[in-house]
């Protein structure tokens, strides 16, 4: 259990760093949604299924889509 948690945390922080670092905005948004996904797993592990469901539907799904639409409208690469 603890090992799983540590792996998840490493992925979480790596994802967050990649969100900030990546020059490609699409990659950044995808990393951001990975962060949300892991946050959602965290919520499940912390015995908060309601929150996990909300984070999965809104954080992982919806806000990623909104970002993608914005990127499509503006530009993909960070200048």
């Amino acid at each position, binding site marked *: 259990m603890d090992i799983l948690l540590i792996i998840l945390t490493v992925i979480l922080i790596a994802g967050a760093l990649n969100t900030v670092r990546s020059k490609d905005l699409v990659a950044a948004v995808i990393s951001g949604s990975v962060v949300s996904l892991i946050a959602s797993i965290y919520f499940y592990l912390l015995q*908060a299924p309601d929150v996990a469901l*909300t984070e999965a539907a*809104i954080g992982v799904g919806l806000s990623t889509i909104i970002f993608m*639409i914005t990127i499509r409208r503006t530009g993909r690469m960070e200048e």
Partner: protein
Amino acid sequence: MRKAIAVLFLGFIGYYLLSTFLLVPFGVVRVLEGVGLKYLQDGLQQTGAANLVTSIVVNYRGFDTLGEVTVLFLAATGMGALLYSKRPTERARQNASVIVKTGARILFPLIIILGAYVFIHGHLTPGGGFQGGAIIASGFLLMFMSYRTYHVNHVILSRVESSAGSVFVIIGLLGLAYGSSFLANILPLGTANTLFSAGVIPLIYVAVGFKVGAELTALLDTMLQTVK
């Protein structure tokens, strides 16, 4: 230079934040007289909802939820105002392939039903108005993505939004008229763990579900309208 200052500053904040939070022990019951424990002990009898998170969100702290629905409404309104243009841009996107289109048409009703299930059973199982609403919006998103010409009727969408919001407030006002206070639970609680229990909680959550679904769909639609 700017980065170095930022990192230094963040290290400073991070150190104090972490050292403060480490003073709060993790994973134990810290406060014996907290409201959390009161809800756990009496929540089932007092509200009749098996899902205590729902009973807090909709009943004990229902006023917050009214505010929360308003926040979402505000965001949808604000986006409508900001991205307003006299004539909507023509969508020049390609239709998706036949397989995707067929799949979307089969999945769409299933997703809507799933969403409805989630918010109708919000007082029994994990989930509720917000989650169900988000699921419904994702169903519409699937249709937006698959069919170039698919668009929702704005009048109906805005009518659903307005009436669901009004129903929430009206239930609250009925509580004021027939019960003791705004949002008071005026219906019988029923037996816990059955669909028709917990008084007004499921009614409010259904209204929230419709409202959130309509708002998020409107939000996505406004966003998509800006893309060619």
